[in-house]
């Protein structure tokens, strides 16, 4: 029986003690997804409220922030051990007899199937640093680059051996924290399998959130932002789409709901802004090519996003997904200038001054 867990640390208050809550929810894979995903059916039940650790303190001599983080992580994993103890029980191997809704008794072998969460919590659960991938051994410099063949998956058996031998150096090199991971105690569980594709975290709050900034910078760079705003403010209403009340660049916080709304219209709006010819300077050949590539990049991401929402998949739809992903990575370089982080931009500005 697949057990599904989901968690997300939530910030509750800003000015009265910075209260945080860290709930963990649970459901089972035996319930059809259409029912499980309806919040009115209450198929996800709260299973734990995890402790939220104190803030790190910088000014303690002999007790660095790194040590504090390490000990806080170890404490969280001790709580995980307690929470997941029933799943490491010997009874899970022999099975539990349980009454089902169809008045039958079945033998159940509970097994953790996934833990849905964002990357930072995945790092906590897998006890890794924030840079490496929790699924595969991909070099940090290759993160964000497309790979047809993929990379070998993380081998937690090796990490367990290194931890038992207190080989902290080897663990550090692989970006793994030297603590006793609570999930290692669960039998027949391959930890990288716990990370499952998640539209909210991977696509909406992942790639789309970056794409929003890239598009804005791209439009400003080519002086198309006013044309874009013109189209953006005149989007007609239709079922399932709420008309944006603010200008695109004025929206300060993009939540999952707003990004979902944005993804529905961005391709048409972006293409209309770039293809507008009235009151615009004549485009050079290079600019036309860049505009076409930018539209193709946004189109690939939109297609990928729309296809991930299919209720069922075949090998063919999965091959389409791979194709869209490849196309996105092939064309994303058109936004390369706008993808630079603060550090790179600062370095580039300094280098420019020196010239």
């Amino acid at each position, binding site marked *: *029986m*697949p*057990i599904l867990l989901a968690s997300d640390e939530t910030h509750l208050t800003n000015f009265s003690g910075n209260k945080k809550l860290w709930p963990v929810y*649970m459901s*089972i*894979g*035996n*319930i*059809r*997804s*259409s*029912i499980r995903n309806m919040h009115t*059916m209450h*198929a996800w*039940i*709260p*299973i*734990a*409220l*995890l*402790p*939220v*650790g104190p803030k790190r*303190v910088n000014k303690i001599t002999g*007790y660095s922030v790194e040590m504090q983080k390490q*000990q*806080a992580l*170890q*404490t969280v994993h*001790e*709580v995980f051990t*307690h*929470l997941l*103890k*029933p*799943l490491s*029980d010997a*009874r899970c191997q022999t099975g*539990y*007899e*349980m*009454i*089902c*809704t*169809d*008045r*039958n*008794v*079945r*033998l*159940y*072998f*509970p*097994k953790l199937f996934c833990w849905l969460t964002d990357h930072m919590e995945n790092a906590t659960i897998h006890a890794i640093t924030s840079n490496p991938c929790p699924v595969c051994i991909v070099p940090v410099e290759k993160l964000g680059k497309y790979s047809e063949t993929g990379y070998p998956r993380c081998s937690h058996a090796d990490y367990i051996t290194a931890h038992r031998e207190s080989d902290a150096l080897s663990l550090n090199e692989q970006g793994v924290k030297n603590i006793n991971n609570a999930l290692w105690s669960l039998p027949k569980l391959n930890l990288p*399998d716990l990370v499952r594709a998640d539209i909210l975290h991977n696509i909406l709050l992942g790639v789309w959130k970056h794409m929003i900034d890239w598009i804005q910078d791209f439009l400003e760079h080519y002086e198309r932002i006013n044309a874009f705003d013109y189209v953006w403010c005149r989007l007609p209403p239709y079922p399932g789409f709420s008309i944006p009340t603010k200008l695109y660049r004025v929206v300060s916080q993009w939540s999952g709901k707003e990004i979902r709304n944005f993804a529905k219209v961005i391709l048409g709006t972006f293409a209309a802004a770039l293809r507008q010819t009235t009151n615009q300077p004549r485009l050079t050949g290079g600019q036309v090519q860049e505009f076409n590539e930018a539209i193709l990049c946004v189109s690939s991401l939109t297609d990928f996003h729309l296809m991930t929402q299919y209720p*069922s*998949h*075949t*090998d*063919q739809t999965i091959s389409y997904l791979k194709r869209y992903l490849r196309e996105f990575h092939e064309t994303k370089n058109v936004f390369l200038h706008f993808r630079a982080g603060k550090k790179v931009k600062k370095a580039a500005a300094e280098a420019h001054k020196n010239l």
Partner: protein
Amino acid sequence: MLRVICSDYDSPSSEPESEGSDKEALRLSSESEADEDNLKPDVTNPDPDVTNSMTLCHAGIPIRAYSFPEEDPGLNLYAPFQHHVDYRLARFFNCAKTLQGNIEQFLQEGILQGLNLAHHIQFRSAYTMYKLVDAATNEPRWQSGVVDYPLLNGVQFHYRNIILAVKYLLCQKAYAGDMVWGPQQEYDREGNRVYSEINTAIWWEDNQVRISDILCRIGD
């Protein structure tokens, strides 16, 4: 570093437990034809693309039917409510989303006593009514523990037993028509394999079929 306030994890007994909420639900289901249909396990797939589905071997097949003690005359099907009138009244208030103030007013004016002199309502306020409703749901209870961080002692955490939570979800009648028990292979018109639910994925096949095969071999 880790302290647990409540009783520690107790391994659930192997005997299946009867569920209070399920008793009431089963009684009610006999009154409604639509609800009766929900009790039958539904193996049809709602996805229109899927034209052919196949259940794999014996995985997910029940080991025995559960004989529910409905016939026992001493069994109170409406526990923790003492009488079916109390249960139905609470059910009405809950389903109609009646405001707590209105419930209080209804109980204070004694309207029900006016209609039926013999019956005394078990609850006197909305608060006590909802306490009974909560008790009827039979949810797994919460336990608490305390952890000590190096710079902050006594941080509380709360948790439930996962196995009891699974039992609770499995016996919910609301999901009766939407439960899957074993792996299925689904195909479209062209014969391509379709992946829609978790039980149509290869992961489920790999896990459940392997376990059930091992059990069958042991049984043989």
